[in-house]
């Protein structure tokens, strides 16, 4: 191992040491560094590697400073070496530190503004880096040597990559895979699990026998599946539970091994509890338990798939033999795929197998590119924000230094060297950066905890597990150091140009900076950016409001949803039907309930399906899709949902029959196939059956709020097998009060039957509102941060420039200009840059508002309120930020100012 990147980076770190030292020892230090890094890598892998970097950085910063200090000392003292023990460098550091702390404490407003601005920048960066680290970079938790693990994915060409594999493919691989010390297959499955008297639906993983062995998962109790027997797992019904499930559902019982669980209606013996940090290969979606693949027909309610080469549902993971290069394994897989293609041409022709190292898989290899892209954009955006914050703070710092120049000149006059003054300013910026880093870490901690609490309105809870890992903390420390350097360096360099005599006399030439056009440019850019972001925030906020007002075509208030899947509990189709009918009747008789409907899918959710239809007499164009979305509903559905039947009739109990051919379609369906005609009585065919349209309903929203209207079919419940159904209960009373009542009724009819996704329709619609909410919150947040930065930036730049113009103001006032006039004059002349930025921002926002049109739920993006409001707000913020320093200048005593001049 040569570590070329580390080596290059270390060479840069070595720049911290003075050149003579580096010339003598640099080469040997590099060798020693490589030896340290190699040793740590061998001892504790990637963790050790990062740890060494931490120590190396600390060592280099500290020793580099020491060597530089001792060199300076020697240079200053010539050959006369001072006796040991006085250490002037450290003494002066201590004094500078004390003086800097005093100065900052005396200026709480300045300290607060700087720390707040930087902390916001550092905090946002840490949150984003922490998120990216958790989702993309963090090694798979709870497994041994995660860097040896790889995923094996099937690819079909034409961009179809990262596909799951079939059971026979897995068995072939597992029995012959030379380059791997083990291959295992796994898939998710919904399971109905009974613990005692109640059953609940949980997410399980169905895994091959060597799953725990290949991954090296430690067990809290018991063992994993035996690797000695058949590859698919034991014949007995055995199960391993997760530590979370063991603690929460099984009460953390230490004698749990040997107990049985009721899964999908039969008994399974618990043989192990997997250690808590292991949450499967996709930790974001953690399973509650693991069951062997040998029982997949029972667990997945499918046929025996061990002979089907076309049924792909297994994800494969393999551990490379130690020391083997991934390239060799990939080559082996290529030959293996070619052999399979010869042996089973119909199933394997044109199919490739690829090896993806687990550490590069992210959430899932299929979404990795998107994930990397999005993370990259976010990182760049927040890094720019931090840069802007640093530059703004630098402006503030410079303004401060300008107003302090007399004090600094006095120090210089009393014998402080320019280097000493520079150190003093650097010390102040170091304190501020440290404080900002600390507050930033706090912001990040709460920010990440907040992100962890995000619950997407989907069936399963996602385990984000965002946390402040120490790589994130190292990142923040580097960021803090960098920010401190960026904003501290500029003023401390300028201070060296200070002309001692003229400053003490108070002369005009003592100004720190001339041609401060860079500051104006900064104001210009920030005002433009703030205007754009504020306009966008306004548009997205309006978008959220419009989304809330969109007519979905069905009622959302007073509706309560509950899903049940009797099939999972081993109910036969006829028992299922009977249960649904009697349950609907019993719920309808509850107090306050007005009607009960049932449907296979809830509109605007994540699931839904399409069916291919043919309409007699209609010839589709070659590009036209004849797939139409559908739902399976019962006779009570339309009245519960408040969907009127505009022509024909709704479903009746008589339609709920396996041989039924009645169908209801929406208006769009009618207009597409029989424009300007009545559709009632017309027919279409689907699935080999001819359906008769008995009614028409108005168009609604089915998949997303922003969709254009599309054709839709309702089939009667019972005519098509449907599995799980969702009850739509419409009541007068508060829907949430119905939960207990509905549970009781279900329990009375089918003891132990799990009811899931209990929620109101309004809660369900939160999912479809998610994009609008996310857009409004993200853009709004960036807008807010930008305006905050704008305040600091303008205040700094104007403050600096006004401090230089105090003599001119003094002359104006002495010549009779009032304070108000002088103030407005300053504000006016300083706000030219802001005005330009406002114009540019307005123009860019106009263009962007047309670009984002397709993302929004309303058409007229040229909203005068949003545009005028944003422009007014930015102008007000910019002018107010300029007003305060201007007023301060205008109030200074003219005689005093003129005397100094």
């Amino acid at each position, binding site marked *: 191992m040569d570590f070329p990147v580390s080596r290059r980076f270390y060479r840069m770190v070595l720049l911290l*040491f003075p050149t003579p*030292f580096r010339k*003598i*020892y640099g*080469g*040997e*230090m*590099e*060798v*020693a*560094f490589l*030896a*340290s890094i190699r040793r740590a890598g061998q001892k504790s892998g990637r963790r050790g590697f990062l740890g060494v970097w931490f*120590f*190396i950085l600390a*060592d*280099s910063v*500290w*020793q*580099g400073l*020491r*060597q530089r200090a001792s060199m300076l000392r020697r240079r200053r003292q010539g050959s006369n070496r001072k006796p*040991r023990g006085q250490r002037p460098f450290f003494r002066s550091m201590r004094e500078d530190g004390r003086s800097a702390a005093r100065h900052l404490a005396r200026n709480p407003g300045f300290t607060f503004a700087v720390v707040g601005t930087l902390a916001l920048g550092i905090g946002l960066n840490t949150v984003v880096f922490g998120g990216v680290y958790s989702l993309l970079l963090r090694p798979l938790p709870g497994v041994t040597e995660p860097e040896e693990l790889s995923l094996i994915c099937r690819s079909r060409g034409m961009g179809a990559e990262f596909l799951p594999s079939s059971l026979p493919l897995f068995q072939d691989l597992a029995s012959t895979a030379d380059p791997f010390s083990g291959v295992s297959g796994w898939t998710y499955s919904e399971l109905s699990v009974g613990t005692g008297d109640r059953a609940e639906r949980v997410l399980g993983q169905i895994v091959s026998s060597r799953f725990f062995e290949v991954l090296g998962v430690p067990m809290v109790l018991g063992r994993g599946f035996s690797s000695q027997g058949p590859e698919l797992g034991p014949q007995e019904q055995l199960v391993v539970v997760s530590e979370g499930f063991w603690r929460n559902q099984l009460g953390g019982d230490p004698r749990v091994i040997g107990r049985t669980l009721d899964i999908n209606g039969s008994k399974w013996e618990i043989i192990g509890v997997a250690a808590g940090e292991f949450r499967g290969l996709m930790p974001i979606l953690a399973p509650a338990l693991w069951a062997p693949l040998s029982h997949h027909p029972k667990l997945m309610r499918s046929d025996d798939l061990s002979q089907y080469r076309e049924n792909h549902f297994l994800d494969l993971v393999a551990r490379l033999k130690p020391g083997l290069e991934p390239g060799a394994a990939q080559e082996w897989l290529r030959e293996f795929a070619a052999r399979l293609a010869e042996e089973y041409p119909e199933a394997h022709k044109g199919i490739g197998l690829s090896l993806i190292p687990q550490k590069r898989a992210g959430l899932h290899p299929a979404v990795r590119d998107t994930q990397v892209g999005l993370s990259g954009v976010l990182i760049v955006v927040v890094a720019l924000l931090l840069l802007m914050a640093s530059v703004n703070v630098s402006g503030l710092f410079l303004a401060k230094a300008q107003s302090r120049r007399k004090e600094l000149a006095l120090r210089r006059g009393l014998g402080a060297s320019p280097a000493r003054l520079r150190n003093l300013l650097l010390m102040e910026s170091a304190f501020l950066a440290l404080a900002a880093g600390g507050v930033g870490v706090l912001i990040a901690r709460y920010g990440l905890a907040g992100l962890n609490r995000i619950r997407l309105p989907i069936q399963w809870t996602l385990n984000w597990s965002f946390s402040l890992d120490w790589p994130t903390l190292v990142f923040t420390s580097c960021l803090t150091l960098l920010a401190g350097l960026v904003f501290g360096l500029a003023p401390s360099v300028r201070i060296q140009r200070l002309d001692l005599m003229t400053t003490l006399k108070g002369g005009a030439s003592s100004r720190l900076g001339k041609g401060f056009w860079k500051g104006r440019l900064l104001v210009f850019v920030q005002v433009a950016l703030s205007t754009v972001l504020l306009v966008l925030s306004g548009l997205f906020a309006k978008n959220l409001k419009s989304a809330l007002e969109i007519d979905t075509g069905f009622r959302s208030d007073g509706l309560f949803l509950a899903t049940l899947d009797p099939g999972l509990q081993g109910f036969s189709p006829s028992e299922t039907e009977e249960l649904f009918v009697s349950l609907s009747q019993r719920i309808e008789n509850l107090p306050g309930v007005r009607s009960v409907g049932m449907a296979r899918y809830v509109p605007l959710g994540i699931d839904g399906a399409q069916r291919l239809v043919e309409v007699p007499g209609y010839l589709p164009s070659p590009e036209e899709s004849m797939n139409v979305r559908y739902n399976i509903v019962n006779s009570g559905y339309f009245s519960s949902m408040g969907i009127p039947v505009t022509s024909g009739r709704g479903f009746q109990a008589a339609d709920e029959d396996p041989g039924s051919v009645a169908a209801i379609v929406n208006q769009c369906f009618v207009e597409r196939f029989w424009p300007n005609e009545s559709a009632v009585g017309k027919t279409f065919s689907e699935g080999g059956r001819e359906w008769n349209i008995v009614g028409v309903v108005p168009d609604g929203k089915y998949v997303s709020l922003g969709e254009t209207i599309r054709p839709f079919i309702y089939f009667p419940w019972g005519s098509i097998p449907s599995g799980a159904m969702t009850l739509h209960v419409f009541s007068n009373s508060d829907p949430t009060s119905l939960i207990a009542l509905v549970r009781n009724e279900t329990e009375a009819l089918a003891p132990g039957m799990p009811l899931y996704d209990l929620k109101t329709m309004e809660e369900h619609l939160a999912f479809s509102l998610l994009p609008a909410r996310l857009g409004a919150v993200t853009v709004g947040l960036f807008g807010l941060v930008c305006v905050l930065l704008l305040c600091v930036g303008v205040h700094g730049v104007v403050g600096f420039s006004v401090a230089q113009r105090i003599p001119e103001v003094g002359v104006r006032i002495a010549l009779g200009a009032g304070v108000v006039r002088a103030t407005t004059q300053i504000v006016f002349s300083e706000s030219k840059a802001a005005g330009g930025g406002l114009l540019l921002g307005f123009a860019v926002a106009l263009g962007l508002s047309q670009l984002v049109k397709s993302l929004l739920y309303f058409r007229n993006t040229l909203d005068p309120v949003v545009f005028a409001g944003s422009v007014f707000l930015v102008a007000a913020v910019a002018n107010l930020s300029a007003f305060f320093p201007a007023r301060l200048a205008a109030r200074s005593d003219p005689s005093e100012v003129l005397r100094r001049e």
Partner: protein
Amino acid sequence: MVKEFKRNGLKPRFFHILLSLADQDLHGLRIMEEVSQRTDGEIHLWPGVLYGSLKHLVEEGLIRETDPPSDSESGGGQPRYYRITSSGRAALAAEAARLSKYVAAALAKNLG
């Protein structure tokens, strides 16, 4: 200088470097490895500390640079070899005596 070390004690890193050089001439990387081995990894001299200390010890006259031994293996270019000087040896002996006095005191109290 040696007197001063006698009064204040040697810093542990100086002590360990001198100890490594007590019976053989070594270059920086070998000193780092020797110290790490002897202390079971408890003391690891990172490059900055190591070469900073070597420079300091040379300046204080406790060690000096020397020609590489004829049987030396090269470890990254031409590493500098160091040899302990007589004042270095004296400082090392004084420090060892100082430490052993404390150890003896501890043993006398039956601390094992």
